[in-house]
């Protein structure tokens, strides 16, 4: 095993940076809490990356996918299917937690250093470009949600950009994380929206237990929604974000149980919000509303208004804004981590602006470009959204396989490397998601292949 030291080093020759000191203070709080055996507080202190990555992936386009699913097929097969996709997401993301704890390195730098520049530059370019386009879709969600409330596009996009920059200006990982976790709670706005649709609890329970009723027609639209729901749950930025933020947070091997709990808690909360969105949109299915031309979450909110009431529709629109905003903050940060890691420059939310010019510049630049694109009159937003799906799904295969290779790298992982069971579970999921992702990419790029 490589010398990834476990022992503290208090050598006076080391000149501590601001990043070191802030991380040390966070770790000191964790150490004291662990020593006093306050397990609930310990879990709270160590929560963050898992919750943020899972609720961050419940972003604008994902919530539209869940709403489209509910409006197209009602509550049935897709409710347990969403649960399954988040189980898969947990298995994938748990590997990033172990990688972070074992190596204290971000995902992009591990790929670059351990597997070579080709994969390092490829992963970074794929991520940064894909993230930029995804950011456009997040600002579309923010804009669309704002329009529902009569807020001009430029104002809502401008506010979104300011919020992203303001979160970075905190210059403190712990504060940034807690701020985003507070915002992430609002992803659960879809739950009261679902309750206002007066769902049939017994039917939902039956669907979760039996995967029924199955859709009457299982054509191309059904298959595409299957793929879209998988694509809404596991994407490349999540891998890069959770590993890098877990490193930035300072998680160590001693925190493995809490890191897994954080990831599981995030998956459970995200599953609840996703199924709530499906349920909230189900009245559109009962009312036979054609949602095929709906372009954003705001269209769903407007269509739901006569069915679930003004309050429910308002909650739905607010949820869409939150989904776009949180994702814009987490996704832009994942680009920052990846780019700064590959170019071996400082990368931490504990940096000040002067020490982290590239790190902060990437996030701010990405948000500025994405926001500006959304505001360009006649911009090909649909083309960008389509390409986001293709990139995210087709290039998921390399991201997952590289993750699996690194999780099996015993030189850096030691005892945290994948065991046989983890490889069987992880490998199966990787193959399944990679195949589904590739199929979705091809179908999206060449729709004529499967007809209507």
């Amino acid at each position, binding site marked *: 095993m*490589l010398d990834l030291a476990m022992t*503290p080093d208090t050598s006076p020759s080391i000149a501590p940076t601001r990043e*070191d000191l802030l991380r*040390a203070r966070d770790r000191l709080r964790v150490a004291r809490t662990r020593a006093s055996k306050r397990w609930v507080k310990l879990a709270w202190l160590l929560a963050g990356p898992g919750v943020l990555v899972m609720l961050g992936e419940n972003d604008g386009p994902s919530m539209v996918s869940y709403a489209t699913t509910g409006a197209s097929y009602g509550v049935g097969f897709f409710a347990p299917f969403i649960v399954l996709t988040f189980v898969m997401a947990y298995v994938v993301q748990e590997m990033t937690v172990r990688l972070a704890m074992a190596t*204290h390195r971000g995902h992009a730098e591990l790929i670059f250093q*351990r597997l070579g520049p080709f994969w390092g530059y490829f992963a970074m370019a794929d991520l940064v470009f894909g993230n930029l386009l995804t950011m456009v879709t997040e600002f579309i969600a923010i804009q669309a949600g704002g329009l529902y409330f009569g807020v001009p596009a430029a104002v809502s996009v401008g506010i979104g950009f300011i919020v992203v920059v303001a979160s970075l200006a905190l210059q403190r990982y712990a504060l940034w994380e807690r701020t985003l976790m507070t915002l992430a709670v609002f992803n659960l706005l879809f739950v009261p929206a679902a309750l206002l649709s007066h769902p049939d609890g017994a039917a939902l329970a039956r669907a979760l237990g039996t995967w029924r009723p199955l859709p009457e027609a299982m054509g191309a639209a059904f298959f595409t929604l299957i793929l879209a729901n998988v694509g809404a749950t596991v994407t490349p930025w999540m891998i890069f974000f959770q590993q890098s933020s877990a490193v930035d947070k300072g998680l160590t091997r001693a925190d493995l149980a809490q890191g897994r709990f954080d990831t599981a808690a995030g998956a459970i909360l995200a599953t609840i919000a996703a199924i709530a969105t499906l349920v909230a949109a189900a009245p559109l299915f009962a009312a036979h509303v054609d949602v095929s031309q709906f372009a954003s979450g705001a269209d769903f909110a407007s269509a739901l208004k006569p069915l679930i009431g003004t309050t429910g529709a308002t909650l739905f629109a607010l949820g869409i804004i939150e989904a776009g905003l949180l994702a814009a903050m987490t996704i832009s940060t994942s680009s920052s981590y990846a780019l700064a890691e590959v170019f071996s420059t400082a990368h931490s939310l504990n940096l000040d602006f002067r020490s982290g010019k590239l790190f902060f510049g990437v996030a701010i630049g990405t948000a500025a470009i994405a926001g500006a694109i959304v505001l360009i009159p006649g911009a090909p937003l649909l083309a960008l959204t389509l390409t986001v799906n293709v990139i995210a799904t087709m290039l998921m295969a390399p991201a997952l396989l590289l993750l699996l290779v690194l999780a099996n790298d015993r*030189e850096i992982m030691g005892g945290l490397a994948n065991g046989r069971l983890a490889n069987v579970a992880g490998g199966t999921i990787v193959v399944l998601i990679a195949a589904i992702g590739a199929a979705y990419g091809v179908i999206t790029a060449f729709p004529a292949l499967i007809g209507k």
Partner: protein
Amino acid sequence: MHFDPRELAVLERDQLAVEKLRALPRAKVTRGVTLMLLALRIYVLIAVPVVIYAFAHALLAG
């Protein structure tokens, strides 16, 4: 920024910023992994043009 040097003792050595910038050596990959990475390169060579095509097609379609 005021700090107590003993605070740093809670960090593992590789958690220090200066250590994190130290590059790790290349992994010694097995023949199987090498073959898989080669197959992955071929996949990427196929996937990237599909992505570019999808983007261009969507742009032209408006």
